[in-house]
C-alpha cells in the first residue's frame, strides 16, 4: 500500500514536529482519509464483520462533511427531532451530495420512525 495520507492529502510522514511548529499543520491534516477507511472496510469484511465494514464506509462518506453538519445530522436522527418528511429530505440531499450509504440509513430511519412514533409530532 502506498503511504497513508491525511484527509488534506498530506502524507503522514510530513506531519512532523517541525511542520507543526512552523504552523503548516491544520485540522484537516489530523483527520483520517476516506481511502484509509475504505481500506479498513475491506479488512473488516475479510475478518467476518460486514457490519463494521459498512460502518467504515459510511464513515468514509462522512469525512466530506464539516463537524457541525455531522452533529446536526446526528441530532436530526434523535427521537422526536424530525418529521418523516424532513428525514426523507435529508436522505435525498445526502444522496445528491454523494453520501449514498448515509442517505440509506436516514431513509430507513424515516420509514421506521413514522411507524414507531419516533418522528416529531
Amino acid at each position, binding site marked *: 500500500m502506498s503511504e*497513508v495520507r*491525511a484527509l488534506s492529502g498530506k502524507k*503522514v*510522514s510530513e*506531519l*512532523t*514536529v517541525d511542520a*507543526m*511548529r512552523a504552523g503548516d*499543520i*491544520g*485540522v484537516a491534516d*489530523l*483527520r*483520517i*482519509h476516506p481511502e*484509509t*477507511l475504505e*481500506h*479498513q472496510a475491506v*479488512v*473488516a469484511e475479510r*475478518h*467476518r*464483520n460486514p*457490519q*463494521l*465494514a*459498512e*460502518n*467504515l464506509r*459510511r*464513515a*468514509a*462518506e*462522512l*469525512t466530506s*462533511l464539516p*463537524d457541525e453538519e*455531522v*452533529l446536526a*445530522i*446526528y441530532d436530526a*436522527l*434523535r*427521537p422526536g427531532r424530525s418529521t418523516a418528511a424532513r428525514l426523507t429530505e435529508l436522505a435525498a440531499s445526502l444522496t445528491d451530495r454523494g453520501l449514498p450509504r*448515509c442517505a440509506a*440509513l*436516514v431513509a*430507513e*430511519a424515516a420509514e*421506521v*420512525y413514522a411507524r*414507531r412514533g*419516533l418522528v416529531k409530532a
Partner: protein
Amino acid sequence: MNEPVGRIRFMDRQRVNLDGFAVENAELGLVALRSPYDPGPSLTVTDGRITELDGVAEADFDSIDTFIARHGIDLAVAAEAMALPDVAFARLLTDPAVPRAEIIRLSAGATPAKLTRVLAVLKPHELGMAMAKLRSRRTPSNQAHVTNRLDDPLLLAADAATAAAFGFREIETTVPVLGDAPSNAVACLVGAAVGSQGVLIQCSVEEAAELELGMRGLTSYAETISLYGTEQVFTDGDDTPWSKAFLTSAYASRGMKMRVSSGAGAEVLMAGAERKSMLYLEARCVALARAVGAQGVQNGGIDGASVAAAVPNGLRELMAENVMVMMRNLESCSGNDALMSESDMRRTSRTLPIVLAGSDFAFSGFGSIQRYDNMFGPSNFNAEDIDDFLAMQRDWGIDGGLRTVAAERLADLRRDAAQACRAVYGYLGLADFTDEHVALAVDASGSKDLGQTDTLAVLAAAHAIRQRGLTVVDIVTALDECGYPELAERTVEFLQARLGGDYLQTSAIFDERLAVLSLVTDPNDYAGPGTGYEPPPDRQREIDAIRQQRGVGDLRESQARHAAPGRLGPAGPAMPGSDPRDVVIGVSPAVGRDVWRCLSGLAVTDVLREILAGLEEEGCAGRIVRFGGTVDLGQIGLAAARLSGSGIGIGLQGKGTALIHRRDLAPLANLELYSVAPTITPELYRLLGANAARHAKGGTPDPARNPYSDEAIEARYHTTVIALMELERRRVDAAARPETLVLSS
C-alpha cells in the same frame, strides 16, 4: 420480637450484609438468565427478508427488532444456527476441537433469544473456557480510570503517567465539572505519553463534546455510546438505533476508535425491563452493537452491575454478557468497573473468573486512582487494589495486563508528567502552577493530598482550550518549545500511527512500539491446552517480579544491617558442665554470623539477654553455645541439654523459635516449645529462661502459652523463614564442635 442470637448478630455485622439482595422477580426484570416472559428463539425468512424474529412478526417489530432484522443477522447461516439445539450449540463453545471461527460463523446467524438460551446453559467454568477461546485479541489488556475530585491537571498528568507505567493501554477520564473536560483531556494526553507510548485516551462526557475533543486529536477513543434492550428505555435515553449507528460512523469518520456500552440492570433501573431477563435484554443490545457496525462493546453490568449482583446467578449473567460479545466477533471490554459489593470477597469473586479466562480488556475501567477520586464512582478494583491485582496475576501465572513499577521509576515519571503538564499550560497561557503544586502532585496518593487548589483556574484553562480551538498540534509545539522534544516526537508518532486506521479494527490497542494488536494482527488462537496466549518470557518476568518479592540475598543484606559482631563473639570450644545449676543455651549455626535479628524484630542478642536474665532470676547460670552441625531445633536443644551440668538445655534458632529440652528425651520431644517466633515477646523469652531453670531445679513450672494471633502469620513470614533457614543451612558443618559465645553489652 426477640433479638437474634449472638451468632446471627455477629454475622449481620459482616460487610457483605451492607449489600442488597433482591428476591428474583420477573415482573420487575429482576431475573438474570431466564424469564418466563422471554421469547423463544425463532426466525422466519421470507424472500430473503426476516419476517419473524424471536416470536415477533415483522409488522410488530419495534425499532430494535427492525434494526437487528435488517442489519444484524447473517441469513446465509441463520437456518443452520437456529436449528442447532441449545445444548449442542453450547458444547461447541467449550469444545477445544471446534475453532473460534466456527463459533463466529454460526453466532452471526443466531437471534438474540437463541444466544440467550445457549449461554444460559453454560456453567461458570464453561463460561471461562468459552471466554478463553472466543475473545478476539490474543493478548489480554486492561483499561484504567484516571480522574480526581478537583480535575487537577498536574495530578491527572502524574496519575495518567502512573497508569501507563502500570501497563494500562487505555485511559478513560471524566469530569466532576463538565466544563473542565478539555483540560482533563490535555493533562491525560501529556501524562500518558510520559508513562508509555501508544496509550489510548478517552474523555467521557456528553457526545458532541467528546466527539469535538477527538476531532482535535486530544483524545483517541470513545466508549460511552449507550445501547438499551427495550425501545422505551432507548428512547428515554434520547437515541434510536439509527442515531447510534450514525454516531458510530461519525466517530470512525474522524478516525476515532469507539465501542458501545450496554449491560444488565440499566433497563431495570429505569423500570423499563418489560419483564424480560437481563441476559435477553443484553442479547438485544449486543446484536444491535454488531448491527450498527461498532467494533466492540463495554458490558458486564457497568452501572447496573450491582442490580445483576442482587439476584441469583447475577455474576454468571455478567460474564455471559461478555462471552456473547465475543461470539458476535466484537471486542469485549468486560465491565468490572463499578463497585458491586461492600465485601472484598464478593467483588473479587465477581472479577477473578474474567481475569483468569482473559478478556480483550478485563476491566472497562480499573480505578487506577483512589476510590474517592474516581469520578465515575468507585470501580470494582481501585488504586487500593493494584498490588492485590499484581499478586493475583503472579499467583495464577496469568496476564491481566498490569506490571509492577519500581518506586524510583514511578517518582521520576510522576515528576516528568507533572512538570511537562505545567510547562504546556504555562506556554499556552492556560494556567500557571507553582513548584509547590508540582511537588504535591508528584507525591500525592490522591487529590486530598493537594490541599486547597484553584479550581476556577482549571475551568478557565479548559474554557481557553475550547475557545481558542487548541489541538494536538498546539500541545506538540508547546512540548517541543518547553524542552520536551521526545514527548513531542512521541505524540506525533502516535498521531501518525492512528491515521493509518488499523486501530479502528476489532479489539485494537497499540503496544509500546506502536504496533497494533487486534483481531486482525493478533488473532486469538486458543484451541485447548498447550495453545493460545502465553506471556512471552519478558512479559512473564514482569508479571512475576513484583516489587515486594525477596530472595535470600535480600534477607542476607537486611540481616547484615543488624550485625553486631562486637556484642556476640566466639570464645573457644564449649566443654560439658558439671554444676547442677548450669543450663546451656544452644543456638543455631548462623547465629552471630549471618543472622542477627529474629522474626519478631528482636535482636538475637536481646533475646539471649532475656533468657539469661530468666535463668538468673531462678538461680541458674546460663551459657551460650553454638552448635554448627544441624539446623534442627530439637537436635540443638538436646545437644545443649547433654552439654549442660543440669541436664536441661535451651534451643534457640536464629529466627527466634525456642524450646526447653532434657538430656534423656528423644530429639523430637521437648518440655516446652515457643513455636510462633514472630509473636514471641521479651517477657516470654524471660519466662522461657525462668522455666528452664525451674526444670533444672526439678520443679514443674506452668508451661508458657504461645500467644494466639488471627493474622496471616504464615503468609507474612514463611518466605523469610525459608530464606533464614537457608542462611542457617549454608553455615552447617557436620564436623563443627560446639563453640562458646560470649555476650557483651
